């Protein structure tokens, strides 16, 4: 079986299921509550599908006030709560325990306000990432963070994980585009932080909430910065005969003073899978970069020339620049379908450790060696401009021991990222997946203060309690909280 442990569920809570459901049902509309074991199964996992556990019950409120009511009841009965958006987390951030209630925000789907003069949009957090940009389309604006899962994932989960995307080299991640939230604390109290102002005088609590993986509060509304759409954008594809040269090219482009919107990397394993899947017309070479620049036609042409000159010094095997919308689409097509293409090859674990850009070539080489040693194939496709790797470890979930071997290899790769000066997670979050590796990146005090902050927000440790911190490290906090009144 799998290697990540979850705390033993509290039998006393499970035994009180009918009491808990009755309390929720007394205060909330019937259609917001799911408690039939057949139906709660739909919430047993997120996109880290190797780990599953149906919750005690699920609440799907439609207003902030209903979230607050549900939270207050769970707090009163001391039931752990798992906040959930669309459930696309790759880290197991929305994985329930048998003694928990899932509070899902996906039915909070209203667009509350668009203010183009002050450049923000206010939404309920159950709206999907892509629908925010769609809502802004006619105004000439967009919402910049663009996770590949943007069709499905919600703003709630984006805030939970501080998600990023291909274009964050230029526009930043969720934290850089989040202006304010309305949220429900563990006690059920509703608090508003920030708003349309570009500055605030007190402590920046909002920055703590963003990326807190549902451990501090349930976010129900968000004020987001909106950005004018660029006049145009054009990608180019650069093929190299080695990972090292491709990595070097990334650093040189950045040093040259051009700031592309995106620099994406794909290795040969990934290129072949993608080619078979989507016929994007990619060259067959060891490493490819997709670099995208933005602006007017002239601005685009000027930036391409600069990048072409930088790349030429490194003798690329291929330099293909899109000339029109169709060619642009073809270049992006393969990259966007990369995860789907890899999925056809079998099961995979997708890591997201980050390394300093200068360490990319070495990291790729070491990953190759580790992969060989483990006897599992690894494909690399990632956001190279910011060193955010995505090694995809291929395995067969039906073969006994394969998942464990894949996880062990993943852990080795993530330790490598930390050793090289990087981090365990660049965008997917810690969840349960990287929870037990936290001590490789953080000394005991570094982690202790984060758990103390969690306790300051959530004294009873009820919000997503078994995530982010190794169970051993969080035990005193969780157990201390359980006995506190």
């Amino acid at each position: 079986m799998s290697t990540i442990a979850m705390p033993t569920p509290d039998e006393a809570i499970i035994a009180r299921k009918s009491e808990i459901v009755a309390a929720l049902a007394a205060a909330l509309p019937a259609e917001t509550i799911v408690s039939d074991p057949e139906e709660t199964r739909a919430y047993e996992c997120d996109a880290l599908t190797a780990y599953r556990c149906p919750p005690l019950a699920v609440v799907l409120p439609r207003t902030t006030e209903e979230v607050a009511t549900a939270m207050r009841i769970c707090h009163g009965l001391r039931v752990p709560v798992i906040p959930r958006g669309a459930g696309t987390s790759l880290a197991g951030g929305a994985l329930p325990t048998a003694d928990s209630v899932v509070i899902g925000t996906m039915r909070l789907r209203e667009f509350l306000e668009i203010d183009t003069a002050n450049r923000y949009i206010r939404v309920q957090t159950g709206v999907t990432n892509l629908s925010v940009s769609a809502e802004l389309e006619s105004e000439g604006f967009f919402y910049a963070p663009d996770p590949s899962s943007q069709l499905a994932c919600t703003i709630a989960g984006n805030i939970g994980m501080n998600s990023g995307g291909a274009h964050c080299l230029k526009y930043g991640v969720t934290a850089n585009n989040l202006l304010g939230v309305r949220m429900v604390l563990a006690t059920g109290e509703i608090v508003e932080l920030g708003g349309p102002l570009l500055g605030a005088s007190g402590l920046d609590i909002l920055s703590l909430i963003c990326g807190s993986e549902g451990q501090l509060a349930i976010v129900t509304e968000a004020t987001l910065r909106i950005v004018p759409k660029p006049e145009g954008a054009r990608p180019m594809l650069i093929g190299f005969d080695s990972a090292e040269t491709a990595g070097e090219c990334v650093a040189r482009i950045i040093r040259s003073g051009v700031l592309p919107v995106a620099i994406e990397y794909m290795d040969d394993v990934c290129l072949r899978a993608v080619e078979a899947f989507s016929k994007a017309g990619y060259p067959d070479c060891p490493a490819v970069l997709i670099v995208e620049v933005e602006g007017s036609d002239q601005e685009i042409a000027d930036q391409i020339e600069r990048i072409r000159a930088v790349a030429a010094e490194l003798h690329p095997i291929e330099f293909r620049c899109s000339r029109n919308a169709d060619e642009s689409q073809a270049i992006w097509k393969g990259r966007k379908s990369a995860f789907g293409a890899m999925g056809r090859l079998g099961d995979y674990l997708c890591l997201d450790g980050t390394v300093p850009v200068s360490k990319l070539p070495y990291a790729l080489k070491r990953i190759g060696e580790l992969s060989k040693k483990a006897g599992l194939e690894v494909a690399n496709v990632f956001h190279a401009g910011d060193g955010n790797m995505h090694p995809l470890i291929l395995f067969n979930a039906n073969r006994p021991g394969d998942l464990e071997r894949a996880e062990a290899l993943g852990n080795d790769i993530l330790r490598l990222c930390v050793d090289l000066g990087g981090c365990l997670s660049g965008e997917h979050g810690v969840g349960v997946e990287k929870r037990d590796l936290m001590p490789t990146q953080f000394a005991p005090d570094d982690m202790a203060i984060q758990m103390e902050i969690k306790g300051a927000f959530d004294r009873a440790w009820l919000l997503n309690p078994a995530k982010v911190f190794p169970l051993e490290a969080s035990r005193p906090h969780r157990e201390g909280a359980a006995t506190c009144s």
Partner: protein
Amino acid sequence: MLLKTCDGGNASNFTAPGDESELAAFVEESYARRRALHIAGGGTRVRWAEVGGDFLLTARGLGGIVTYEPGELTLIARAGTPVEEIEQTLAAQGQALAFEPMDHRLLLGSSGTPTIGGVVSANVCGPRRVQAGACRDYILGVRFVDGKGRIIKNGGRVMKNVTGLNLGRLLCGSYGTLGILSEVALKTLPMAESQQTLAFGGVSAAEAVELFSAALRTPFEVSGAAFRGATAWLRVEGFSRQVEYRRERLITLFRDRKIDIYGEEESRSLWRGLRDLHHFAGTSDAVWRIFVKPTDAPAVVAALQALGGDASLDWGGGLIWYCGSGDAVSVRKAAEGGQATLVRGGALPASPIFPPEPKGIAYLSAALRKTFDPAGIFNPGLVDG
């Protein structure tokens, strides 16, 4: 433990630790003895008398750039490193701190050398904040000492990092009330090759904000939008040809207006003056920094002017600088819907520097301060006073 005392302060209650462990040991001892500390960087901002504390502790002894990787857009520096040293080092590689930190010395009539730790502690930004984000948006990682003397590391040196809670952003703008920074890792950006400014004369604050909103919704990456007297300015930056293109497109957009163009040098010096508030330097009234929703700015400016002072706008109207009379209560009333922070006390009697927080937030802030600084020894007078 060896404590260094330097000139400039009272030798018996002034300390500038020379390394992080010395800093931690001093704080640990202060924690044990419940000794209140006034934390300073270069000492160019808030003055000791205004904040109080048994000891003046400065991180200025922790100096020096640790690493700078232009190809990674990453710089790591100890907290006491002078901002100027960092800016020069970056400029030599054609890079800069995109958030354009303001230099407060002229405005406050203070001496001393601004340090990067001070800039981060106060989330100091300049005009480019409207396009490029705040200081906070450029923090990749921090090392700091908390109120018990623990050395804490958070974040790192890479641009994408969602491992654990983001304490770097939280410490940024906390004015030393949560921890004493010992090291910061920052994201750098290429410095714009060229810049020009469009000046619109004879406009009111209301017209200026309309202009700003129209300009900031274009894709031309307007990187400065400020107003003072009766002139509004828009800055465009980029590669030379790009700047010319952007300028022409904005001229077309505002073809009904008379526009003066400032070239490179004139533009640079204009924005330096706006950034550092040269227009309010040398005066003696109180100076307030007021965050508002840009479209609220004209009404707030009118209300402030009724108090008898002068106001200028930055960040497309999102930031009002007010210099003039009016006590804290009347200024905050005029700034209704916004947030007013006192930057220079002038002749004002002791007044709260920060606006009061709403109850729900005040509770969380207090809980956080207690977590970081359980004995309440960091800048105790700053938040309650």
